[in-house]
């Protein structure tokens, strides 16, 4: 194919990441980007307790993201610091899913996303706790304890809003409808087939799956959907039907929402390069 196009976004193009770096960045970028999205609620949540709760969840995710991104940086060649990776990569270089980058919407939509992500994260991290990679196992063991609280928080809200007033029910359902097309990407290899035909195992992660570093993400889909379905139905809501599925985040193809999010998140570091305090 000849020379690779020379633009900054290609510096971390998929083929230059080792499988382990790729995996660690997927996990870390999901946590970092969702943390940034959640922080938008600080000082704007419906009640003070929620302001505090969402800030705490964002802080947990930020901590998890920092540990994972630091680890990814340490095994890159040459090594990169967490700040370089968080503040100096462009959207094209992020490995996060589309689920975490879409706008926060109203409170119900935020809780719909939290329910999906926390359920996914609790199942995934329970598996990663047994990872043959000691660092990933340690981070997952720590994060798992925190995610239980995040999942509980989101579940309580989905139940309360779904089985609440006509308006809260309607808005909770609308929130679920918005996030549902983004669910499958969490389990999808996205290895480049044109026609989407359900999640596939990621060939890039195959060596890691074989070595017991991470589970086959596709295998987590069914238990995750089952668990989500149970909560959604208890909340008197309906599991949405969707005709399309988001794809591309794991290979660095994002919506423009991520560009705006990064512009805000990275603005200080870019304005004052190398600043410390």
């Amino acid at each position, binding site marked *: 194919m000849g020379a690779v196009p020379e633009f900054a976004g290609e510096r971390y193009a998929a083929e230059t990441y080792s499988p382990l770096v790729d995996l660690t960045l997927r996990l870390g970028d999901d946590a970092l980007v969702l943390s940034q999205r959640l922080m938008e609620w600080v000082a704007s949540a419906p009640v003070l*307790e*929620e302001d*505090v*709760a969402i*800030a*705490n*969840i964002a*802080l*947990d*995710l*930020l*901590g*998890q993201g*920092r*540990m994972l991104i630091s680890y990814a940086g340490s095994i890159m060649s040459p090594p990169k610091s967490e700040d370089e990776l968080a503040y100096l990569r462009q959207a094209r270089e992020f490995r996060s899913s589309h689920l975490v980058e879409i706008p926060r919407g109203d409170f119900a939509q935020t809780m719909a996303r939290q329910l999906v992500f926390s*359920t996914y994260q609790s199942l995934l991290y329970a598996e990663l706790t047994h990872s043959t990679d*000691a*660092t990933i*196992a*340690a*981070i997952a*063991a*720590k*994060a798992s*304890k*925190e995610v*239980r*609280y995040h*999942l*509980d*928080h989101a*579940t*309580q809200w989905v139940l309360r809003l779904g089985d609440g007033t006509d308006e809260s029910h309607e808005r909770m359902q609308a929130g679920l409808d918005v996030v549902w097309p983004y669910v499958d990407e969490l389990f999808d290899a996205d290895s480049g087939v044109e026609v989407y035909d359900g999640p596939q195992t990621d060939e890039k992660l195959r060596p890691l799956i074989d070595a017991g570093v991470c589970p086959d993400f596709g295998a987590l889909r069914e238990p995750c959907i089952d*668990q989500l379905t149970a*909560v959604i139905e208890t909340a008197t809501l309906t599991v949405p039907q969707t005709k399309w599925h988001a794809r591309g985040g794991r290979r660095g193809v994002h919506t423009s929402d991520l560009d705006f999010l990064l512009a805000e998140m990275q603005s200080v570091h870019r304005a004052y390069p190398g600043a410390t305090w």
Partner: protein
Amino acid sequence: MSTTTRDLEDLSPFGYGDRSPANDIDGTDPKSAVALGPDVTPWELAADVNDPEIPALSIADLGILRAVEVSDDGGTVTVTITPTYSGCPAMKAIEHDLRRVFTEAGYREVVVDVVLAPAWTTDWITPRGLAALEESGIAPPTGTRAVAGPVSVGLSVRCPHCGDFDTEVLSQFGSTSCKALYRCNTCREPFDWFKTLR
């Protein structure tokens, strides 16, 4: 980074950055741990540092102080700590406090190691720590697991003000990562509960 740091270190008699400023002014050897006095062990010195977000509790009573090791020549101390929560913002402050305490005690080099495994649990809070929490108006973690799955398990948390068990959770997330917000139905006072984490 290392080049700049070293240049500045060479220029300054007190060193630079996180390096210990204490003993190199006249080129004498650093004090050994013995210089602390016969009664103060390095562990006790580290244990003297408090959690900045819960000042009633030392890092030893909180269970985040895992090990204190002194090198054979007595000049270097390695302190191992572990975070309560992944995003705990107090870790940096605790690290700085440890550096200060050991530097003032005469150690040439202070290494603070942050480890993740095994993951911290509220089971590591000492009996003295539990008592200190209650005394400062924070209900200590209860004996059973707080969250077993997607749905909360009801728990009796004792009000640290009036001692009654008729309390209710206002939010699972409180003033810091490690606390939840409760209210006592008897004395009507709100209070923090130190969340059980296992």
